[in-house]
């Protein structure tokens, strides 16, 4: 649904995006991750037809972003970094205007406004002037405007920025509800957002693609060691030595109340660990696998601490 090939964008001598290729399947939600000035906004602007790329190809909903810009623009809903609002309009008038310029047929305009207002929870402020509504409502209105023409592809640039925790949760629910019917690409700094909302991520840094793929695939691919966290009733230091003697276990260390065991990622030593616990009656309370969190993954990739 969204595809880029060797995308490059230069501002004069400054390279904002370089050799960026990724693909997002229809009906999925993908996150675009990266530190500030990584090229996230530039990439989104290219996809929405706001900026032309210097070279490379990009297509959205099967149309070429450069050759068939008008078709692409009809299929895209876009929330830019600064929510594009006219403060002197009412919420309803604004959505009406957006519906018109997005070429929603006149007889469907009212229904489109109603639907957008309802899905984003704007009913309470519908008749108010935009300059008088709170930031949370403005952000929602920004999303409502991106949804109004029921586009196939929705591109959201930092949709939860500046919201309070309750609002963030609401917006995430809203974005999740778009899965299936719409293809969503969102950029964010908040890594938890990605785990909660996205099917896959594209991680970029300094304009270059660092990693792209489904979350599960990436966390597996980038894991160096496999292992478990253990919580035991009996937690004396001698216990660590017991585990160290197990074949394959490379590391056994205490981390707070838990014990962290590591082994090569091609091995699985969980059965042996459990046997050991039973034999020595260590009182196993909990065992969970040492999966790479998105934070670890991100830091490793962006700070270059890992090679695939």
């Amino acid at each position, binding site marked *: 649904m969204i595809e880029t090939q060797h995308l490059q964008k230069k*501002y*004069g001598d400054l390279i904002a995006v370089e050799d960026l290729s990724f693909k997002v399947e229809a009906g999925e939600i993908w996150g675009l991750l990266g530190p500030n000035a990584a090229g996230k906004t530039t990439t989104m*602007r290219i996809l*929405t*037809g*706001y*900026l*032309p790329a210097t070279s490379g190809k990009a297509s959205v909903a099967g149309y070429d972003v450069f050759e068939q810009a*008008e078709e692409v*623009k*009809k299929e*895209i809903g*876009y929330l*830019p*970094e*600064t*929510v*594009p*609002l*006219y*403060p*002197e*309009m009412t919420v309803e*008038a604004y959505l009406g*205007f*957006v519906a*018109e*310029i*997005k*070429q929603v047929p006149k007889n469907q305009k009212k229904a489109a406004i109603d639907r957008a207002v309802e899905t984003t929870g704007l009913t309470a402020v519908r008749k108010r002037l935009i300059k008088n509504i709170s930031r949370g409502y403005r952000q929602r209105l920004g999303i409502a*405007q991106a949804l109004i023409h029921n586009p196939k592809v929705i591109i959201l640039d930092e949709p939860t920025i500046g919201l309070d925790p309750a609002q963030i949760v609401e917006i995430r629910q809203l974005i999740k509800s778009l899965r299936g019917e719409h293809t969503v690409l969102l950029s964010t700094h908040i890594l938890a957002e990605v785990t909660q909302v996205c099917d896959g991520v594209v991680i970029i840094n300094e304009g270059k693609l660092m990693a792209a793929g489904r979350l599960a695939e990436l966390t597996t691919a980038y894991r160096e060691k496999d292992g478990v966290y253990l919580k035991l009733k009996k937690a004396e230091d001698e216990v660590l030595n017991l585990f160290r003697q197990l074949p394959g276990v490379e590391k056994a260390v205490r981390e707070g109340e838990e014990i962290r065991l590591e082994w090569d990622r091609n091995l699985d030593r969980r059965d042996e660990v459990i046997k050991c616990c039973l034999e020595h009656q260590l009182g196993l309370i909990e065992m969970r696998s040492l999966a790479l969190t998105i934070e670890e993954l991100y830091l490793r990739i962006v700070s270059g601490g890992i090679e695939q």
Partner: protein
Amino acid sequence: MKAVWSIIKKELLTYFTSPIAYIIIFTFLLLSGFFFYSLISWFNSIAPQMAQNPYYYQQININQMVFSPLFNNLSIVLMLMLPLLSMRLFSEEKKMGTEELLFTSPLSITQIIVGKYLASLIVLFIMLLLSAIPVLFTFIYGNPETVPFLLGYLGLFLMGAAFLGLGVFWSSITENQIVSAVLTFGTLLLFWVLSWVSYSAHGIWQGVLNYLSFFEHFDSLTRGIFDTTDLVYYLSFAFFGLFLTHSVIQSRRWR
């Protein structure tokens, strides 16, 4: 056309929900009312005196003595006011980030420019229409010639259209409305004084400078002479402004 209309509607809504259009129209009406009042008072006091002399009696002409100077005064007022009308058209969108919405919508750049420009023309039209109301009373209490009166207003409208075309261009250059207004005003002033310079110029330059000046073309219209050169001049001026706007927006996005 439907797309252009939605831009027009939105621009008019912005003009009339913020104080800007009201203040500009109010000030324009105040000044035009004042000019009209002082000219007509002067005319009323001088006409009876002139009537006593058979030679001057022939010269009494409300078109020449009231309308023509009125239109000239109003043209200067327009020069001062219209940059304030056009300054926000693109600057504000840029500053508020709303241009990203406009330029990622399926509308073409031309449709957006034309919509915005037409909206400002509508405000100009309303302004001129309202200012004509007091002047129409002279038709009840006297018998001025209609054609020069209409041509005068046509001239004001065309000149305003040219001013706005230039204003749209300058507002596409900057995100600062003040900068946009000052640049527009400066350029208009420059075109205004071109005719002064032309008096001291020689040969072909005199003709060129004269042709370029806004007010040379306006003069003949206020005197009731309709010349297509004047029409072409103002329309091409406006068109040129819009064309430059298109190039600016286009090139900015390709940079």
